[in-house]
């Protein structure tokens, strides 16, 4: 029987406005690869952060090898034998492999002089053990993202952890390179390392994992041995909730306002879709499916290598953001803090940021008009803020999102792309945002929604395109779509 290495019991974690984990349990055996599955916001990241020492749980206990432990911080987690590999790279490109793996922990002699031979020997030994055949003296910069991922994993392993947590390890590597990763993981298994493999790529889970745990909405739903289940099982566990939004009445849309044919780039392939006037079309899929990339390409923010875009039947060339805006396209970015808002500027300044021409008197900014407009939208969208001169950074997530929304409402585009419109937004604000979107469509605006929130997609969409791995895998009408169906397309198990 496998030895139980890690046991997590009744973990609850709250953040302002949301309960991220609701009394979850999780356990991990020696030499096991245990996949942790769930949609965005299901709580997998939060649990992982708690184990890694970034957060502390509010309720519940963690047992390592049968003993209760308290993980004070990241360093403590490492000392306890828990190592994590995040999605973001932490490597220093200009240093070599050895110095990255043993970052700030190079073996030293007197006066902090590095023992190079020992460093390289230790590195070589580790790399051999892991079956990674690279030169420890090679500079990290020159390696592909996949190999850098391996180096990152080697770095985590150099601490000799009992538990290795991998957060979406294949997000940045191609399918070919996944093979490399898996042979490494199998080696680790043999050596007794326990691995938590966080991913929503179902195909991979069946290739590599021993057990699967599914989280949904902060709760532990089920745990099973992989040999006992199939794709459908996982999909069904991941979704299938009480939809708390009722289906909204659909308007008929005959006029095609936007048509994209054969869009291609390094991140997506052969994208074809249509949007009708006053229609809400959603792009569903899992993180990394390429939806944001398509929208950014359409908006002129990223390069599109080939393809055609037709607006109102006329072909348009969109090479820069300005072209898109002139042609009536607006875009609410996925990352509202870094891409959508000017955090240290006032609400009113933000609301004006994409419509300066409209809000001017001739060549000059009309501050009165900006203030008036901002006040109007503050009331209309119910933006909660002491004043429109408040710095946006002080507003809550939902209200920040409303500010970005207001910004684009002022522009009044024909086609509004909203990317993860309610991410990090509380329930009350969510409903308000949906209401605003619906009203826009009544006025004839078409909306493209990119969302990983299935209930949301099902509640508000007239039509749904589902993407997987950079391609559109399915198209469903709002009526015929179900969570399971969408998830199947999104997981790539249905064509």
């Amino acid at each position, binding site marked *: 029987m496998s030895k139980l290495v890690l046991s997590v019991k009744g973990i609850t974690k709250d953040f302002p406005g949301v309960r991220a984990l609701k009394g979850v349990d999780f356990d991990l055996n020696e030499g096991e690869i245990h996949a942790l599955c769930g949609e965005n916001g299901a709580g997998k990241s939060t649990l992982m952060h708690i184990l890694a020492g970034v957060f502390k749980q509010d309720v519940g206990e963690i047992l390592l090898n049968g003993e209760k432990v308290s993980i004070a911080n*990241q360093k403590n987690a490492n000392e306890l034998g828990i190592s994590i590999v995040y999605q973001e790279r*932490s490597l*220093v490109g200009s*240093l070599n492999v050895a110095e990255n793996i043993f970052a*700030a*922990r190079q073996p*030293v002699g007197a006066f*902090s002089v*590095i023992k190079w031979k020992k460093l390289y020997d230790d590195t070589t030994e580790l790399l051999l053990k892991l079956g990674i055949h690279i030169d420890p003296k090679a500079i990290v910069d020159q390696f592909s993202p996949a190999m850098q991922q391996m180096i990152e994993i080697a770095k985590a392993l150099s601490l000799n952890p009992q538990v290795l947590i991998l957060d979406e390890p294949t997000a940045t590597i191609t399918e070919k390179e996944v093979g490399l990763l898996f042979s490494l993981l199998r080696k680790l298994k043999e050596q007794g390392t326990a691995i938590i493999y966080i991913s929503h790529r179902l195909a991979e889970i069946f290739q590599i994992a021993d057990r699967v745990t599914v989280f949904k909405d902060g709760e532990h739903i089920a745990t099973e041995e992989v040999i006992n289940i199939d794709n459908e099982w996982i999909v069904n566990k991941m979704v299938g909730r009480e939809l708390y939004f009722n289906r909204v009445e659909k308007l008929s849309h005959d006029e095609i306002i936007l048509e994209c044919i054969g869009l291609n780039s390094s991140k997506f392939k052969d994208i074809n879709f249509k949007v009708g006037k006053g229609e809400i079309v959603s792009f569903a899929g899992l993180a990394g499916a390429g939806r944001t990339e398509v929208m950014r390409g359409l908006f002129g923010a990223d390069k599109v290598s080939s393809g055609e875009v037709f607006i109102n039947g006329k072909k348009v060339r969109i090479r820069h953001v300005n072209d898109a805006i002139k042609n009536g396209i607006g875009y609410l970015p996925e990352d509202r803090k870094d891409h959508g808002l000017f955090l240290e500027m006032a609400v009113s300044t933000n609301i004006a940021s994409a419509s300066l021409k409209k809000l001017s008197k001739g060549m000059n900014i009309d501050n009165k008009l900006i203030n008036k407009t901002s006040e109007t939208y503050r009331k209309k969208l119910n933006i909660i803020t002491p004043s429109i001169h408040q710095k946006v950074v002080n507003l809550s997530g939902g209200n920040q999102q409303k500010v970005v929304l207001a910004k684009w409402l002022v522009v009044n585009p024909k086609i509004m792309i909203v990317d993860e419109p309610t991410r990090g937004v509380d329930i009350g604000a969510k409903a308000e945002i949906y209401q605003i979107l619906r009203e826009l469509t009544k006025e004839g605006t078409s909306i493209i929604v990119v969302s990983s929130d299935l209930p949301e997609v099902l509640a508000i969409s007239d039509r749904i395109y589902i993407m997987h791995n950079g391609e559109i895998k399915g198209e469903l009408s709002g009526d015929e779509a179900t969570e399971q169906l969408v998830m199947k397309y999104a997981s790539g198990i249905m064509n």
Partner: protein
Amino acid sequence: MINKAEKKSSFLSFISTQRALALFILITIISLLFSFVFPTTFGTFSNFSIILLNMSSEIMIVIAITIVLIQGEIDLSLGSNMVLGAILCGRLMIVNDLPMIFAIIISLIVCMACGFINGLIVAKLNVVSFIGTLATGMIFLGFAVILSGTGWTDFPDKLFKALGQTKIMGIQMPVIYMIVALIIFAFLVSSTRYFRQYYYIGANQKAAKLSGINISKVKITTFVIAGCLAGIGGIITAMRFNTAIPNVGAGVELRAVTAAVIGGVSFAGGSGTVAGAAMGALFIAVLSNALTIAKLPPDLQPSITGVILITAIIIDIIVTKKNK
């Protein structure tokens, strides 16, 4: 079969990643060429010792700025700090009759204190290092000028002058100090865990913190070391000329940055070596000397340096983009 494009890119890669070596090769080629064409004027021992001697006055600043740049910061107070060190040392010896050794020690302590102030401002008060050190530099220079009177010269301790002006086998002492300092710091920065921390901080401060590095402490210490180096540089210059006046070549820090960047130190932090920066400084020195001897208008040398600086950074950008 390596095609032409790959060959070209690996050449550029070489220049980018092995900057010290590439520059050294370039310097050797230029030196050999010019020695061949101008055997009596360029290719002489005395000419090379002059090149090295002139380099020695600002080399300490080059080393100091390199370690600061690797961390992703900059220090524009180094020139003032250097002058302050020299003047204080001179004043202590002449006005306060202090023995040379004490004057030097006290001056260096003051320089390190100045560096400490810089460190506090940047690490604890979160001030952008460019403008913070610009401000402190002004203050340090002001104090240096106040302390300088009409300048200090003719120091009582003859050993002081000897330390700066003696020649060993035709090489003047400051050159020897320069070589020693370069060897020490090239070693420290490339081979001690303590100094390697700078690279982690410069490349990714968040990740560095997660690796257990105490960012504030390291940053403050760096500014202190830089201040100390500046002070040493100032005192060596005072020894060499037997004079201490508040006449620092305005912009010595920017000249040092130029040498460092040509030598492969990234302005954004996280890469570059002391050896590279030294080669950068040597390259500029040799090229200037060679072009002067070749009767190229010496006035145009800064322009050539400027072109080289921009070329160097464009090469680095091209190589970085290729890697992506």
